[in-house]
């Protein structure tokens, strides 16, 4: 009975008792084939939590698995880190920003034994959690705001997907639902009547932007469609199943049991995808959008407000233009021929307009292309797709074939849509349930795939996602290659633990927040990272057994956000249009194609969190790029963490760090008054979440005398290792 309760909720209850018989029909192998398969291609079951000697170190089940492995090597967990360390670790990990001095004080003085777990709960409820963790999903989803390639055209509605991800994570949307929305958001509604037309909710339309985020260049007919659908297939597999099927596009996978035929069987689920033709003015480079209303609470009102704001810029320019035209025609000698308005306005001898009018005109003129693009972004649209409506309206279900060597014009064997045989054990076609009247034969294909992926019976989906979460919390996945569970992965360091987490995840109704909570509440997570037992270092140099916490460098986004947060200038506004923070030097002019692209937001708007920065495929923002953030071209399972002199130059000499240092200095004066020691203490508390030592105070005293000196102090703190490395 226990097993059935955790089984896929979508299977009608009446059929549950026959599940053992039906399981092969659902696309999962039965027990007999199951036994022949190696990890991770069978479903995790019956994992018992191990008994350990050091039982008093256990906070939850995770620790039992970890300690057991450690004990087998005569090792044990490191002591718990200090509360001071833990609060900084937890803040960065869950919301991507440091705690304020007040939050630190409160936590350290809180004698409640549950203070830590209460803090965890609070942070998981904090909406900044979504802003932090969405970035990790956007890396996987190869999110960008432009299409890449020649001209790098803008994708004006992509940002709505970014907001969808933030919102979904904050609402702790069930992960199985999150998967289904992104793969088959248009196929949710059951069609039961003969006259019904397929519809989808706005949120689910936005979710499917996922399938359209690949870089894209001008269409070339069948070849482009082949490439697009192949990309959807391989990205879907890497992201949700942790299997790289991409190589099987051209040849049987060299390392894993993924024959070429399986790639095309999986691709066949996507073969009724219908992408809208481009809208007028979009050129031939990007497909068109689908209508999708603003659906979050207050979003419609927000969009209206922004729209008015941009329209008023446009309106003001129109008014000024017609006003100038009147003045010009009244004052220009018609014999001189046609005079161009811009030339007339900018003629310094022109006394018919004031200096202020001229400046305003030029300013507006510069803003308008960008404003127009923003107005486009504010249309209730999504860069989504849907299934074809089939004959007689649109293409029906095409014959799917293996394409030999992956070439679009080299068709081979005919295939039916079907699931990966390394999981199912056979290459039978998948059962695709159409509407009762079979009016929409092109429908339900992707939903069949989505349900199979988002099923409790699927051996990979939950394991892969738990491994991703684990990797983010602990610095390294249980499987070190989070998007590749195949033979090249090197296998899991803690197979039973990962299996147990996967089972638990499904049992917790696919709640990510519950699993975060479990992980960060463990004793394993709360270990110290600073001092390492030499014995442990010798026996487990890479710390794959986790006898200590892994110190980590912050990601690029968290570094930029922290600088702004400490200077007191981070704009906390959530969601909305992409932002365009100032770029150093003449970069914006050097790597852009037209004025509708990167138009710097010098004010508050440009100081929102980094997740909102415009992701232009031909222009990675240098500051973020230096710290290993690239605008995604394809799915990125994990970031690098490099150390380069260019990082030092950016953080020390760069405009951004220096501008914020000035504001940080002002903040220190305001909050700490005139006493130099107090200033240093306050600055440390804000930037590094701790009090300085006597030695550090002594070192920094020369930089605390006045506000100008404090700019140096701020700059120094931003450049300390401690600012970017979390214990």
């Amino acid at each position, binding site marked *: 009975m226990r097993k059935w309760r955790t089984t896929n909720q979508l299977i009608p209850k009446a059929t549950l008792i026959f599940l053992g018989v039906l399981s092969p029909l659902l696309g999962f192998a039965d027990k007999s084939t199951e036994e022949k398969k190696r990890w991770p291609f069978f479903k995790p079951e019956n994992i018992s939590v191990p008994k350990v000697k050091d039982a008093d170190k256990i906070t939850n089940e995770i620790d039992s698995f970890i300690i057991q492995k450690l004990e087998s090597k005569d090792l044990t967990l490191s002591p718990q880190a200090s509360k001071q360390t833990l609060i900084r670790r937890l803040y960065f990990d869950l919301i991507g920003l440091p705690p304020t001095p007040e939050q630190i004080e409160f936590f350290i003085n809180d004698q409640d034994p549950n203070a830590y777990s209460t803090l965890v709960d609070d942070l998981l409820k904090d909406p900044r959690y979504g802003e932090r963790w969405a970035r990790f999903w956007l890396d996987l989803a190869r999110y960008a705001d432009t299409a890449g*390639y020649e001209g*790098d055209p803008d994708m004006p509605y992509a940002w709505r997907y970014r907001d969808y991800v933030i919102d979904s994570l904050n609402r702790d949307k069930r992960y199985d639902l999150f998967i289904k929305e992104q793969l088959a958001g248009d196929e949710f509604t059951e069609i039961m009547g003969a006259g019904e037309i397929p519809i989808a909710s706005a949120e689910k339309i936005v979710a499917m932007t996922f399938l359209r985020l690949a870089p894209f260049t001008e269409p*070339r007919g069948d070849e482009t469609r082949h490439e697009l659908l192949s990309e959807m297939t391989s990205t879907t597999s890497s992201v949700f199943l942790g299997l790289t099927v991409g190589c099987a596009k051209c040849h049987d996978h060299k390392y894993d049991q993924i024959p070429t035929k399986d790639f095309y069987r999986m691709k066949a689920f996507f073969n009724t995808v219908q992408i809208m033709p481009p809208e007028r003015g979009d050129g031939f480079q990007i497909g068109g959008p689908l209508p999708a209303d603003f659906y979050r609470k207050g979003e419609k009102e927000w969009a209206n407000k922004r729209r008015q704001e941009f329209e008023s810029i446009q309106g003001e320019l129109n008014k000024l233009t017609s006003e100038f035209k009147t003045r010009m025609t009244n004052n220009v000698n018609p014999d001189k021929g046609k005079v161009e308005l811009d030339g007339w306005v900018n003629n310094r001898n022109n006394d018919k307009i004031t200096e202020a009018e001229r400046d305003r005109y030029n300013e507006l003129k510069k803003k308008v292309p960008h404003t127009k693009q923003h107005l486009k972004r504010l249309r209730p649209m999504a860069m989504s797709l849907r299934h074809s409506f089939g004959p007689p309206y649109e293409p029906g279900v095409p014959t799917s074939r293996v394409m030999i060597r992956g070439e679009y014009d080299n068709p081979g064997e005919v295939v039916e849509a079907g699931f990966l045989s390394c999981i199912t054990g056979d290459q039978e076609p998948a059962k695709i349930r159409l509407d009762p009247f079979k009016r929409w034969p092109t429908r339900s294909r992707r939903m069949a795939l989505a349900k199979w992926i988002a099923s409790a019976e699927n051996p990979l989906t939950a394991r892969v996602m738990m491994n991703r979460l684990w990797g983010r919390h602990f610095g390294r996945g249980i499987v070190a290659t989070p*998007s590749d569970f195949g033979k090249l992965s090197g296998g899991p360091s803690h197979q039973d633990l990962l299996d147990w987490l996967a089972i638990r995840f499904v049992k917790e109704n696919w709640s990510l927040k519950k699993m975060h909570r479990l992980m960060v509440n463990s004793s394993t997570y709360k270990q110290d990272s600073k001092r390492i037992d030499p014995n442990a270092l010798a026996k487990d140099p890479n710390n794959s057994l986790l006898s200590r916490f892994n110190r980590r460098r912050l990601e690029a986004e968290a570094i930029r956000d922290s600088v702004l947060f400490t200077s007191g200038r981070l704009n906390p506004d959530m969601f909305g249009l992409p932002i365009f923070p100032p770029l*150093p030097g003449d970069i914006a002019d050097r790597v852009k194609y037209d004025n509708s692209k990167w138009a710097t937001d010098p004010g508050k708007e440009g100081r929102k969190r980094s997740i909102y920065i415009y992701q232009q*495929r031909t222009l990675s923002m240098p500051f973020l790029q230096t710290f290993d953030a690239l605008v995604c071209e394809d799915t990125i399972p994990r970031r*690098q963490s490099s150390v380069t002199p260019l990082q030092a130059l950016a953080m020390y000499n760069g405009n951004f760090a220096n501008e914020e240092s000035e504001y940080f200095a002002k903040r220190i004066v305001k909050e700490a008054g005139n006493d130099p020691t107090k200033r240093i203490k306050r600055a440390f508390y804000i930037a590094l979440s701790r009090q300085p030592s006597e030695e550090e105070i002594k*070192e*920094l005293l020369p930089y605390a005398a006045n506000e100008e000196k404090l700019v140096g102090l701020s700059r120094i703190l931003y450049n300390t*290792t401690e600012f970017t490395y979390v214990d």
Partner: protein
Amino acid sequence: MLTEPLCQTRRDFLHRSWNGIGALGLSGILADDLLGKTIGQPKTNPLEPQKQHFPRKAKHCIFLFMQGGVSQMDSFENKPRLRELHGKQIPGTPGVSGELQGRLSFAHSCVGSPFKFAQHGESGRWMSELFPDLATQADKLAFIHGIKTDNQNHGPSTYHVTTGSQFPGSPSVGSWIQYGLGTENQSMPGYVVIQDPRGAPCNGAAVWANGYLPAAYQGTLLRDQGSPILNLNRPHSLTEAEQRQEFDVIKSLNELHLAKRSNISELEARISAYELAFRMQTAAPEIVDISDEPSHIRELYGLDNEKTAGFGRQCLLARRLVERGVRYSLLVHGVQIGSHSWDDHGNVKGGMIKHSGEVDKPIAGLLKDLSQRGLLEETLIVWASEMGRTPFVNSSKLGNNPGREHNSYALCMWMAGGNVKAGSTAGSTDEYSLRSAGNGEPIHVRDVHSTILNLMGMHDTDLTYQHAGRIRKLTDIGGKVLNELIA
């Protein structure tokens, strides 16, 4: 205070800690190195000089990239037959399969080259009158004709030639060479990009991206004005002494931080990265300061002429980079859209006169200058574009100023320097310059990449990196070295 002195001298300390990079700091590299098949031991410093797989003379590579698709039959492929067919269709459809359709409409009239061709040097190399200066260097060059690229749009084919894959996300050639060989001068980036002063190439910065390789291998854009590398100037209002003082405080705080922790190689690496950054502040501006170049050198590169000054400066900087031990320089001529691109869909004659006029003297100057300094021996020069062009006109009518379409079947490139066999040729095109001649498989871009790596002393099959479940390499399925080009 530190519990134990790290090293005796600051120099020792720097050396030791810089070499310590990667032991933990670049854990990405390390993990991947352990998992995948790479040459030698896992690298400590990602840019530390590495041994070649086998001896080759070239230590540096300068890649000259002409954006837009250079017309091969107006530059280096003499096709008298095409001149005869001017205004007529190509007879029959020579060896055409389905793949040669789309943009290539054989119904269109042929355009013979309007330029005179002559043979130059002892090698008797045919060149058009557009390259009079390069013609004097003809015996230094080795040509490749009829190269096949995977796509005939600018975006994908630019990716293909510069990264080995027509899809975005792969490391550029320079990143691979950095990854394989490291760099000699640790005070300078090892991979430098000098783009056309008029703007960016197609795909922008992705042309010199590190792709899935670690960030340490990305190309660094050398700007032609102001600070040559981003963020090289001290914060305004600070003197050098004041900055040094702040760097010392940072260092001392970082050492205090490090002293309280174990497993410190990454933290050490960070401390030495700051010292390197400090040195880079003086080393890098010196490169772009060409005021010490005598007037005959400026003349050699065409700096005294407005037409050639732009690319001339790029070429002169490339020589200075070679002198300073920079491993790989990418020079881009042309911007992605408009009249500054070699993409001559209309008026190929006018376009070719303009573009070639901008690069001929500077490139010849670079060859002469490197040669007279004895640097050509240790420098591989590669001249490339992203595709060739069609023998026939771009539109349905011939018109007065015909242009040419894209042609992914007939890219022409040349190489010089290092172990390149001067005067040699690989591949050929048919009598129309439409596609590769002969019955064999045409030369593919991956074969050229394989040859470039070979000339830098590496086997393409041994320069690998594990990414996303696959062992990746520049040449994907492996290229065929063009041995006829190698001395």
